[in-house]
């Protein structure tokens, strides 16, 4: 298993797609920073307009923590889409180039091979999230500095700088779990579909549908709790003023279970399927 993992890691490091993904993430961050730099104050004014009639504001809310929160919002669509395209490509490229058949001619077990793909996809996702977190921290704090965070989730919540930082860090961890789930789903789609462009379409559709289903009420609180589209926003629940830690923990555990189910399903299907 270890040589397989090593080989997969080398492939990721050597393929240009990996750097396109990192470049795309940096580009998203830079765009957010640029928009915030030039229009941030206007956007905040718009948000706080109705309050300005009744309150004085001392200090600034346009700071590194707000930028971090805005960057976190790219976890809804942009980042998972980029990641799913890259990770599904780990397998679809092998189908397209015919390298899969070459690998299978060696003394490699199919189950181990696909498990290595899943493990590497998880490592890649975590690495990208860590990269995203570190680069955003560095850029946002260097340009905008520290400060209180303002977030609207049901109520207008204000968090002091240190508390905001703590919640942002936890959100990146929770967001990473959601991204891992998406990427495992991406590889599973690749197992079923084999062709890269079709897999990308299905991955994008999966993201859109998941985002749409997030607001759907299934009529039962239990179903709502267990339904996976309701779990992918767990990172945002960390910005509710009084955090429901049990909900956060159970949502993340459920997402891990969903991811494990996807891995088992994908491995089973890949094992049974003809590689041709």
């Amino acid at each position, binding site marked *: 298993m270890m040589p397989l993992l090593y080989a997969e890691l080398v492939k990721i490091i050597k393929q240009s797609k990996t750097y396109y993904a990192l470049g795309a993430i940096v580009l998203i961050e830079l765009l957010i920073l640029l928009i915030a730099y030039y229009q941030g104050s206007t956007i905040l004014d*718009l948000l706080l307009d109705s*309050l300005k009639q009744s309150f*004085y504001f*001392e200090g600034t809310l346009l700071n590194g923590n707000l930028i971090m929160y805005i960057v976190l919002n790219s976890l809804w669509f942009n980042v998972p889409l980029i990641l799913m395209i890259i990770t599904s490509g780990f397998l679809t490229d092998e189908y397209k180039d015919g390298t899969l058949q070459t690998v299978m001619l060696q003394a490699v077990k199919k189950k181990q091979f696909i498990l290595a793909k899943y493990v590497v996809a998880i490592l890649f996702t975590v690495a990208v999230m860590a990269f995203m977190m570190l680069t955003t921290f560095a850029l946002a704090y260097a340009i905008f500095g520290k400060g209180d965070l303002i*977030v609207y989730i049901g109520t*207008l*919540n*204000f968090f002091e700088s240190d*508390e905001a930082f703590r919640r942002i860090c936890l959100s990146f961890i929770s967001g990473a779990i959601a991204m891992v789930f998406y990427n495992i789903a991406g590889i599973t789609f690749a197992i079923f579909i084999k062709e890269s462009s079709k897999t990308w379409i299905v991955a994008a559709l999966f993201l859109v549908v998941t985002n749409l289903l997030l607001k759907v009420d299934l009529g039962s609180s239990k179903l709502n709790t267990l339904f996976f589209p309701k779990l992918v926003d767990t990172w945002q629940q960390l910005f509710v003023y009084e955090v429901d830690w049990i909900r956060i923990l159970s949502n993340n555990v459920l997402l891990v279970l969903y991811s494990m189910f996807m891995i088992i399903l994908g491995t089973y299907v890949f094992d049974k399927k003809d590689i041709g």
Partner: protein
Amino acid sequence: MNRFVFVLFFLWSAKAAFTQEIDADLLAVKKKIDAVQQFSATVIFDLEVPFIRMPTKSAKISYARGEKMQFSSSDFVMLPKRGLDFSMSEIFEYPFITVERGIKKKDGLLLKVLNVIPTDTRSDLAMATLYMDTKANRIVESEINTRKDGSYVLSMQYASERDILPNYVETTFAIERLKIPFNFMGKDTQIDRKKMKETETKTGKIKMQIKDYSVKKD
């Protein structure tokens, strides 16, 4: 002769009406407040507004006679525009008349109730109802009605009998509901339109503990 007496009476009553005297107890309170040339202090405050969640904050305040209260903080702070003038300087800024409204018991204290009505159109104050502790010569509560910024109520507590400035102030004010553009809302934020309409105007409260006073008197 009768006509002459009537004219004299008319002139006397007109003079009485136009030169209405200001309540002596209020003048005593004003004199006590006016003795404060400037002060600075630290305010620790908790904002209680139904749709805003904010941690306890602190700010430095400074006041100089004839000027508006100044606030500064290293943190982000949000303070109501009205209701922070516990030096009462805005009430006494322009000429006014007073109307006595009797005595009212509040928290075991017998308080003199007065209406303060500005006679100068420049004043933003429409009317203030003051609850005065005449024994300690200070205002314990005031209900302020402004021309532009609505109404608010200030309740003050003092650390000792001799203090001019309060060590605890609670300001209650009306606030319009928050209008958040949709694209600022969290993705799974539920919008209850009926509830939103019900809560068109809300009451907010700010509780302030004031400490580390540095007062300069005449």
